[in-house]
């Protein structure tokens, strides 16, 4: 009983105007101070623990999500005031569709409502250069939700100072797969800019003319200039033989004015950066800080491609609705501390090598 009483007194005290004023001033001072050091450019959050919070406080699950949204709003305030450029949040996983229908509907309604509100504040968003992007498998969303999301994304597509990426329905594997797919599409639809003055048909004709008397020279020519349809010769299917057949197929056609050969960009030019540019997060700075709340130490299919290199990952014990500035500050300070250590290590390594 006295415990309850004490917590009530504490709450009353903390919500009294002077205490609130002091706290908000402290808040400002801490943010201003941390801004003096390095600040992560891109932060990702897994907002886990809304349901557990609701359960432990004996409120409806959806209420937990609403409180989670309030925590998110507070977090966004802190992040953007600190100067973080991009915040990516895991709002809804494709797996979450397996949850009870009413919860899924509730989450959809929540997202829709908040987005609709955002639309009303276009000028405010523009003043701060705040953009909202929705990442994920859009085809899984119902049309009315999708329409609102699109409206927000369209409204803010030119605002680049601060970006909020909302992953809604998202899984990282789907993202990687779609990036792979669109890379392939890029490499199979856009022909290579081909501006060599040599005419392939003429060369083919010349060679064909020579074919009668000199067979040895022909083979050497063929080896020196592999025919265009197969850009790679060390291919498991043995493109040497296929190119030879293709060549022979082509040669009778070479009498006609333009033999239609499509030349694709060389697949060997694909690098990690190419795939990177096809990710949902293309154009965002590399992920610096990855935070998961609620004590579960798993990545749960979120930002795998982005976080597996030198992102610092933090697993926190607190549930998402409880997550506030005072949980975030230590993480940020530790991040800054490690970042400084890395900086210190780098020059020393260089000295060692020299």
């Amino acid at each position, binding site marked *: 009983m006295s415990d309850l009483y004490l917590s009530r007194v504490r709450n009353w005290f903390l*919500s009294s105007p002077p205490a*609130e004023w002091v*706290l*908000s001033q402290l*808040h400002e001072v*801490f943010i*201003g*101070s*941390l*801004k*003096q*050091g390095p600040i992560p450019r891109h932060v990702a959050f897994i907002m886990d623990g809304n349901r557990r919070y609701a359960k432990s406080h004996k409120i409806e699950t959806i209420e937990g999500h609403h409180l989670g949204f*309030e925590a998110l709003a*507070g977090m966004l*305030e*802190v992040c*953007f*005031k600190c100067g973080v450029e991009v915040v990516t949040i895991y709002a809804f996983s494709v797996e979450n569709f397996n949850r009870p229908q009413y919860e899924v509907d509730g989450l959809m309604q929540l997202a829709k*409502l908040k987005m609709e*509100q955002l639309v009303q504040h276009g000028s405010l968003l523009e*003043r*701060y250069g705040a953009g909202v992007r929705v990442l994920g498998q859009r085809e899984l969303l119902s049309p009315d939700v999708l329409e609102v999301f699109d409206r927000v994304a369209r409204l803010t597509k030119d605002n680049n100072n601060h970006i909020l990426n909302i992953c809604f329905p998202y899984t*990282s*594997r*789907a993202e*990687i*797969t779609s990036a*792979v*797919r*669109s890379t*392939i*599409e890029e*490499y*199979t639809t856009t022909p290579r800019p081909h501006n060599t003055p040599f005419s392939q048909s003429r060369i083919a004709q010349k060679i064909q003319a020579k074919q009668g008397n000199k067979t040895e020279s022909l083979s050497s020519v063929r080896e020196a200039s592999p025919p265009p349809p197969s850009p790679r010769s060390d*291919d498991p299917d043995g493109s040497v033989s296929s190119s030879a057949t293709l060549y022979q197929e082509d040669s009778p056609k070479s009498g006609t004015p333009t033999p239609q050969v499509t030349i694709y960009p060389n*697949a*060997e030019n*694909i*690098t990690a950066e*190419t*795939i990177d540019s096809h990710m949902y997060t293309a154009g965002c700075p590399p992920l610096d800080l990855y935070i998961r709340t609620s004590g579960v*130490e*798993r*990545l*749960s299919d979120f930002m*795998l491609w982005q*976080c*597996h290199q*030198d*992102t*610092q*990952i933090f*697993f926190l014990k607190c549930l998402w609705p409880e997550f*506030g*500035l005072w949980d975030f500050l230590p993480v940020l*300070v*530790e991040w*800054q*501390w490690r970042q400084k250590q890395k900086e210190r290590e780098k020059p020393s390594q260089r000295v*060692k090598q020299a």
Partner: protein
Amino acid sequence: MAFSKRYLETYRRDEMVGHKLLTPEERVRLLKPYLPSPPPRASKRADSKTREKKLRLGLRHFLKKQLYLLIYSIIHTVFSLYMKIRQAYHAVTNRFNSIYYHHHRTPELIQGDVKGLTRLPDHISVILTLEDEGRGGAGLERLINEAADIAAWCASAGIPMLSIYEKTGILKGYVPETHRAVSQKLAAYFGPQFPSLSVEGPHIPVIESHVSSRAGQAGDGSSKHLSILLLSAEDGRDSIVDLTKTLTEMSQRFKVAPADICIEVVDTELREIVMGEPDLLVLFSPHVELAGYPPWQVRLTEIFHVQDNRG
């Protein structure tokens, strides 16, 4: 405590009725104290009249900045002191634990340790780091030694699959040596009837245990088997890039349509070439950083790390 009580109350009352209580303008007014100061573009109205005022503001700004810098350095001094203490504390407790719970190279003790667990992972993965690069010898030896210790532990605990990730891939160049070291370690743990062992890696032929036949003769050696998979940074992103290249070439020759490429295709290929999903990933670094570990496979892997651990 980011939002004041009055704000939260108004916000929640508004939310209860589906945000119909407040007009957008009222909402902005309510939100005003939480908005950061607008970017300079908006406040670019430089009047000659307000220059004096600006000067004073500049001074205030300067003082504010000095205060922030001071607090920043205080925070970081305190924090690094805290980190040093925390690291020392963890170093001492880890040392104590490693002595107190030392397994004395007896598989029975390790088995006893894991007996209480209801479920054992089938596939454990570890991330090792090569230390003091450049000097080669010592770092490599240490790495192989660590790998052998972990492998022996896994064999004792009854975990059939171990994958060892090391960023530079130096272990891949020393597969026979690794195999020999692990075999010796297993022999030291188990005595003559140690489990059979295979060491492999993506693009590396399997090295099977020579002694497996001898163990087979002994009777029960065949029941236990440990396979070790050596991974490096090239099995992460690069394997996905290579897969994309192959698929692109196939697609350019119309052997596969881009629309056919789905998660299952990528998953089976990567599973075939690299590995499946590990159940548990153990980090030995002081903080969680994946250092290029294969991204596709860590999807649902439980990540275990010991805070401030060193080596």
